[in-house]
């Protein structure tokens, strides 16, 4: 019966790997969690893309939760994320604010015209200074800000259907339960 020993050892290994895969779907793949969750979003005032006369500030957006999606026409991974936003953005039932980061307005507008515009509103941070306050390192990144202006969730990297299903929707549901 020692002949079966290697087989059973392998079964144990498979159990461990199966656990590993399951664990990964439940936990953040990165070892280090984001420090911004639970903190108030920074104060900001940024112009609307293509209409610099109009500005939007943090106060303007209080009252209802919204998703802030950092993107740029120069950003390759944003192109990969874009179809997901187009397909699932509206269904999330929350305002989608595009945060055009370190981009040229003409290029950004052209990109949205070409690929489609999933956003309810697009603000532009050409210099990238406000982004530093948000802790933005690059694109794409997505923040979920609740009605009180507190950051509840941050996604570094593109949104995928999987992430939306397992991370974003639960976070949205949590906010919905709290609202009076």
């Amino acid at each position, binding site marked *: 019966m020692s002949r079966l020993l290697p087989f059973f050892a392998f079964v144990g290994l498979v159990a461990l790997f199966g656990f590993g895969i399951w664990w990964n779907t439940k936990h953040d793949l990165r*070892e*280090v969690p984001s*420090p911004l*969750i639970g903190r108030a979003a920074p104060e900001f005032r940024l112009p609307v893309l293509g209409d610099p006369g109009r500005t939007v500030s943090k106060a303007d957006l209080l009252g209802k939760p919204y998703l802030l999606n950092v993107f740029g026409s*120069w950003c390759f991974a944003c192109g990969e994320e874009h179809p997901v936003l187009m397909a699932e953005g509206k269904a999330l039932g929350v305002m989608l604010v595009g945060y055009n980061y370190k981009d*040229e307005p003409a290029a950004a507008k052209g990109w949205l015209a070409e690929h489609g515009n999933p956003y309810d509103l697009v603000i532009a941070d050409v210099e990238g200074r406000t982004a530093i306050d948000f*802790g933005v390192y*690059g694109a794409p990144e997505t923040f979920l800000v609740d009605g009180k202006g507190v950051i509840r969730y941050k996604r570094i990297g593109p949104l995928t259907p999987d992430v939306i299903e397992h991370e974003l929707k639960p976070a949205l549901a949590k906010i919905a339960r709290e609202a009076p």
Partner: protein
Amino acid sequence: MNPTRKRRLTVVLLVVVAAVAAVGLAVFALQQNMNYLFTPSQVQGGQATQYKSFRLGGMVKAGSVQRASDSLKVSFIVVDADGAMPVEYNGILPDLFRDNQSVIATGSMDGARFVASEVLAKHDETYMPKELKDAMAKAHKNKAIVDEKAETETGK
């Protein structure tokens, strides 16, 4: 006991002894070299006191990086959701190290600060840093010019 049996028994015994020795050594070596990872708030909460050397993980606080003027000493603050930890390191920082970047520093506490013997910065494949903007924007601008030309030419 006949000789074959005796020999088999000796072999089995030797194998068992060797196996026990191997497992014992492995466990010993593991214990000596296990490194736990803690966030600044966990360290401040006292979770790391029993470990002489451990890994500190978090984000580099923007604007906290300070370099000495005459040596390779550098200090910065590592933060997480609820805590911050000043870190000191003497040496060359990795290429990916910058504000708001995830880092893992290995080292030990010296009073209230963390003295790092090694600093690693994380790298994500799907992620695009700001520096790319220039090169990509240039490529995109060129394409935009070409497209405009094409449009005017074909009268679209």
